[in-house]
């Protein structure tokens, strides 16, 4: 429309075309100035809004602490500082932005005036007709409107570019876990073994490997536990089994086949994974427990719930197994989430169970009941447990003690108490003197 209008304007009154150019130039200058002033402040504005958000959020999440220390006024002052700053920048931007409308209108008005004034001269000299002048005026308006829309469109472009870049960044990220080219299958007779052969692992870009030279075998029907301090690499270790990451060196074998050689779905069908924090999806209790075991029938779901000590509370829920689970499982408690996550793994009837510190929200009584119930179903499966407390893993057939990514000792509770210093330290810090004495006597 803009181009057409320019052409028409030029053909009706070529002598007056400079007016359009002048007006467009003025328009561009005004718009450019306004945006040059305002745009950088918009970025600042975003930061200030974030800050205000942060202060408020902190005040809300730390409400008890704030009040415990009687620092309500202090928080209000902090908020007020952020609020004032935000208001100040907001004022500035808005004051700049309100220039826009009157200025643009002024330019439009002056353009019309100029067209008539100059046009009068041309008519006087007989260069153009009155009708031409009137038409020119309309065209001039169209040209300027087009330029205005164009600039506004251009202002959107950089934002679109930034967004586009962010999208491609995600889409173009190469897959770190590559599927096997020729997937292998495990022999049926080899059910429920996990073996680590000299496994080392470093996160991408990290200098220090998290795991160094780890070797052990977890046999079917046995429990293998992993213990160590917070950053010793326990969780990372068990995450290598379902290939959340691939080992940097060495090999991880499930049923004597390297996990890299499995078809992804085939490997996953062997593994029952229970994360640290119970994760649920919106749907029903049943859809959550049967997640991953698609052909799981009602009986299987109920059995899994019973084993996971979830049956009783599910029966109390409205709708029982058809009870609604909200997004992220926000309508059940942490302990209930954890038990349903366990039920989900049990329902799959896997060959390898992985419990990544999955009992933290369970009280000890429930934990014991769960352990008993798991015994029959884990007869032919390997059980890997990551634990923080000695109490929960004392019974394990094999305990792998990790210290700074290395194996500090492998054995059962009693033998480790004798032979492994790191393990003894952990036990000492968690058990009382009396208990230690009893334990050590047992170990002798």
């Amino acid at each position, binding site marked *: 429309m803009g181009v057409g209008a320019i052409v028409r304007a030029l053909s009706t009154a070529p002598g007056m075309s400079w007016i359009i150019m002048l007006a467009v130039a003025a328009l561009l200058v005004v718009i450019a100035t306004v945006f040059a002033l305002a745009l950088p402040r918009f970025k600042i504005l975003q930061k200030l809004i974030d800050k205000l958000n942060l202060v408020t959020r902190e005040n809300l999440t730390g409400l008890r602490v704030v009040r415990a220390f009687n620092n309500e006024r202090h928080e209000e002052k902090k908020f007020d500082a952020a609020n004032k700053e935000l208001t100040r920048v907001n*004022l500035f931007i808005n004051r700049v932005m309100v220039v826009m409308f009157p200025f643009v209108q002024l330019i439009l008005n002056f353009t019309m005036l100029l067209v*008539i004034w100059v046009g009068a001269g041309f008519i006087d000299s007989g260069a153009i007709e009155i009708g031409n002048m009137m038409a020119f005026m309309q065209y001039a308006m169209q040209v300027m409107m087009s330029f205005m829309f164009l600039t506004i469109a251009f202002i959107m472009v950089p934002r679109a570019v930034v967004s586009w870049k962010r999208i491609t960044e995600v889409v173009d990220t190469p897959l770190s876990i590559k599927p096997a080219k020729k997937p292998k299958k495990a022999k049926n007779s080899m059910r429920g073994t996990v073996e680590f052969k000299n496994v080392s692992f470093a996160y991408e870009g990290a200098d220090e490997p998290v795991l160094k030279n780890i070797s052990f075998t977890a046999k079917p029907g046995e429990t293998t536990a992993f213990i160590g301090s917070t950053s010793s690499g326990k969780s990372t270790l068990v995450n290598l089994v379902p290939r959340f990451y691939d080992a940097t060196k060495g090999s991880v074998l499930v049923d004597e086949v390297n996990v890299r050689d499995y078809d992804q779905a085939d490997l996953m069908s062997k593994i029952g994974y229970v994360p640290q924090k119970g994760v649920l999806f919106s749907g029903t209790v049943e859809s959550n427990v049967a997640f991953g075991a698609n052909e799981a029938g009602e009986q299987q779901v109920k059995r899994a719930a019973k084993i996971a000590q979830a049956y009783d509370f599910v029966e109390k829920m409205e709708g029982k197994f058809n009870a609604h689970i909200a997004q992220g499982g926000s309508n059940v408690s942490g302990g209930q989430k954890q038990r349903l996550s366990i039920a989900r793994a049990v329902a799959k009837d896997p060959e390898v169970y992985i419990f990544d510190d999955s009992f933290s929200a369970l009280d*000890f009584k429930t934990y014991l009941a769960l352990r008993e119930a798991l015994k029959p179903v884990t007869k032919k499966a390997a059980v890997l447990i990551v634990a923080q407390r000695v109490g929960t893993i004392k019974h394990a057939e094999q305990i792998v003690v990790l210290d700074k990514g290395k194996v500090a000792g492998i054995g059962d509770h009693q033998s480790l108490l004798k032979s492994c210093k790191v393990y003894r330290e952990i036990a000492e810090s968690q058990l009382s003197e009396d208990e230690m004495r009893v334990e050590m006597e047992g170990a002798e």
Partner: protein
Amino acid sequence: MTDKPKNESHKRNGSVNHGGPVMMTAEKPKHFKKSLGKLLGLLKPNLGAIAVMVALTITATVFDIVSPKILGNMTNQIVDDYISAKVYDAVHEKLPKDVKLPKGTTVKELAQQMGDTGKFSEVPEAQKELVENLDLSEKPRFHYEVLGQIALLLVALYLVSALAYYVSGWVGTSITQNIVYKMRKDLSAKINRMPISYFDRHQYGDVLSRVTNDVDTVGQSLNQVFGQAISAVIMLFGILVMMLTISWQLTIIALLVLPLSFGFVGFITKKSQKHFKNVQNRIGTLNGHIEENYAGQTIVKAFSGEAEAEKHFDAVNSKLYESTWKSQFMSGLMMPVMHFISNLGYVATAVAGGWLALNGRLSIGDIQAFIQYVSQFNQPIVQVGQITNLLQSTVAAAERVFEFLEETEEVPDRQDATKLSIVKGEVEFKNVHFGYEPGQPIIKNFSARIKPGHKVAIVGPTGAGKTTIVNLLMRFYDPDSGEITIDGINTRDMERSDVRDKFGMVLQDTWLFSGTIKENLTYGDLKASRNDVKKAAEAAHVDHFVQALPKSYDTRIEEDSENISVGEKQLLTIARAMLADAPMLILDEATSSVDTRTEVLIQNAMEKLTKGRTSFVIAHRLSTIKNADLILVMNNGGIVEQGSHQELLAADGFYAGLYKAQFVTKT
């Protein structure tokens, strides 16, 4: 109320402009009139400024309305001059070359002299008089001085109008920003005056979105509503009046087009509203799905749920595509069709105007002015539509703000509150009854006396309600009946701040705010010196760690800082409590989230902290429990047993069971 924090992001994503301005789906307020009234009430202190704004807007708008008419006069002048020149030329072409007409000879006289008046019928009515009275003795020139005068007048009008608009915009933003600032300030103060129970019942994200999103919405739209509402209304009436003064016939023609465009806008709005709503809903569903699957990514993978998740995503995504496409198409239709309709109006007025001009009832300048008015007329109509829509969401947002501001506050402290200066640390519970929900008591007739310097262990399974005791001691909640005393004084008779002053608190939920480590530590004592800070940190075994950081005590802790582990955070909160140096303590023992060595450090630090102080410890370690002077055993929210370790074992109740299960198991 039902808003969860998640919805924040939906809202933000949802507010991306989805096309036509008239078509925004506005959130409907519950009590429109009442809330609007309150919103207007906020304007009261600014009445003076508002009056100035209104006056300026009226001035600017009136000038805006008048100026096309004046511009029209300018054109009229040119037309007159042009015709005069043409007539002069035409007459002189016919006359013999050497004829000199006497001064003051008009066209009419000449025609009468020559007996030829027939030509006049060709002259348009409007110019008849001008032509008849044209002085033919001299070539008429363009009246630049008249044009100049009009032009100058217009320049002045334009400038004044622009200035008036600007100043009124300036005043307007100042008013809105002032209101918004005050709203936020009130909200922030309100948060600290609300009972804790409110926040236990409501998602904090809900409050947060009121402070930020809703206030923002009010601020942004108030600005627009304000400026535009005033000028749109004045504009509408002003233009109508001006159009009528030019020609009532043309006005009727121009107005005839209106119902057409109104009808069309209404039709499209109605049709597309549905799709716009769908877009909002489906964006919400899509975000929910993404959020959920992102958070549960490992589970989706481990249970081979990728295909299922993708299928679901595709379904929702294509539905979103469909409604977005439909809504965009609909609103995209709006502009060209509106344009077409207004062009129809244009043509109609131009044709009719031309006819009227020929009949001498209208001048060309008037037509030009009229056409300008017609095109201006659409603007305020669209604006009024926008504003009514905007007003809905503004009031809805304001309503949410007012709702929070009007919530019942904490019962104020007694005026004659007793002040405790020196505390021995004797705490007594006398027949305390308490429940979070009325009619559901969880603590029934609880009495206990804790001697100065004694240690109370609170034990029980997770979720047993151990924080209830903390809530009561700190007066986050007050007992329903009975009393809690410190050194014999009922805590209800003390100021809340005084009670809280007496307790140091270290909770497992290690709340640190973004700021430097020093700022965080001095939170317990805002006047503490750097030396005090260092001493406290040393006692809490955290000095060494802090020293190792690049900026030591000036290292900033950010919300999601990864340079500090949970255990270190806990040590910092202990140091903070040490610095506060309160005579009594409430502590949470570390559990599984901390590695064992750090746990030893924490234990150590806590022991130092509790030495000689009356302390309440939420305990997990048997050694702490055994050494406690009193054990409170909690289950299902209430206190089920109390006594010393030996007493409780002898009673062979819940505690004994718990103890046996946890510590005497053998495989």
